[in-house]
């Protein structure tokens, strides 16, 4: 543990609209440092953690996230991620991460063809990551979603690899943690709501933890995700071994 504040960098693309929410949670709710990183910037301002926020980067033209991943800042984010830096992509940020090749698969149009904006339940499938270690095994979280393209898809081979290596971090579920019924809001393959890369330093998720972090909004299940990132960063500052995605299942 250290007194040093963790410095979050929130990337702002034209069309990002959850950037201020993420900034607010890092800075005001969790009392850390936070800066915005403009899409044309060519440096990461020495941040410890990068957040790719929700929104509609570049109007979702071509495909969600496809234009954003060509931006100058993303070349830096890709380099940062490949060096082991912590990267959290939320909603449109998740879409940018798959387009950038930092996470496998793709986010298709919701099976219903509708934009879905509501609270959903998520089951914590892997609490050994640097993001999720403050949650309990199989804990059920209430976190909102707001997207039109959140239907995760990948080929069977990649799915098997994700399952085998415990890279599916969150799955949609019902209030009691079960599958089936209308627990899956978008048709996502294997009820996937969030995955990490093989090294465990890049998390992409469709639900919005930043919208469920400030107690004044009534829901706080997202807060421990940010608190977990902060504690992991502190342990890296202190020189201990970073928490990786590997480790026992559940």
């Amino acid at each position, binding site marked *: 543990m250290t007194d040093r504040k963790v410095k979050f960098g929130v990337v702002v693309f034209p069309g990002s609209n959850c950037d201020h929410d993420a900034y607010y949670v890092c800075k005001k709710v969790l009392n850390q440092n936070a800066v915005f990183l403009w899409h044309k910037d060519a440096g990461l301002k020495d941040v410890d953690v990068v957040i790719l926020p929700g929104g509609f980067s570049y109007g979702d033209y*071509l*495909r969600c996230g*496809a234009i954003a991943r*060509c931006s100058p800042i993303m070349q830096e984010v890709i380099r940062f991620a490949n060096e082991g830096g912590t990267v959290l992509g939320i909603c449109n940020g998740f879409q940018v991460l*798959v*387009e950038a090749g930092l996470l*496998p*698969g*793709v986010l*298709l*149009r*919701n*099976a*219903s*063809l509708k934009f879905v904006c509501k609270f959903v339940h998520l089951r914590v499938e892997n609490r050994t990551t640097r993001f999720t270690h403050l949650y309990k095994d199989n804990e059920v979280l209430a976190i909102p979603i707001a997207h039109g393209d959140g239907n995760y*898809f*990948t*080929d069977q081979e990649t799915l098997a690899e994700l399952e085998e290596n415990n890279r599916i971090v969150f799955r949609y579920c019902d209030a009691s943690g079960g599958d089936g019924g209308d627990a899956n809001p978008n*048709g996502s393959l294997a009820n996937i709501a969030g995955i990490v890369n093989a090294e465990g330093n890049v998390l992409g998720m469709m639900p919005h933890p930043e919208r469920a972090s400030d107690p004044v909004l009534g829901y706080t299940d997202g807060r421990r995700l940010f608190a977990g990132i902060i504690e992991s960063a502190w342990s890296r500052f202190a020189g201990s071994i970073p928490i990786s995605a590997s480790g026992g299942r559940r």
Partner: protein
Amino acid sequence: MKFLSRVTITLRKSILDPQGKAVHHAVESLGMKQVRDVRMGKYVEVRFEAPSESEARSATEEMCRKLLANPVMEDFRFEIEKMES
């Protein structure tokens, strides 16, 4: 030399196309029951210069692979036309 590439991007066969399905239903409701399937896609025109047709072809291929289509979910095909300069 100036070229025009006409790129067609479609969802891969293994990918469910709910938009195409919705259009299919709409077409059926117009009374055209003979329609078997509808798939939606994108069409992109790219005008550019290249030293030869084969280089224009490989440049288009590269644009498609790197940006215009996402191979996880989409297939692409294109035609190249040499433009009058």
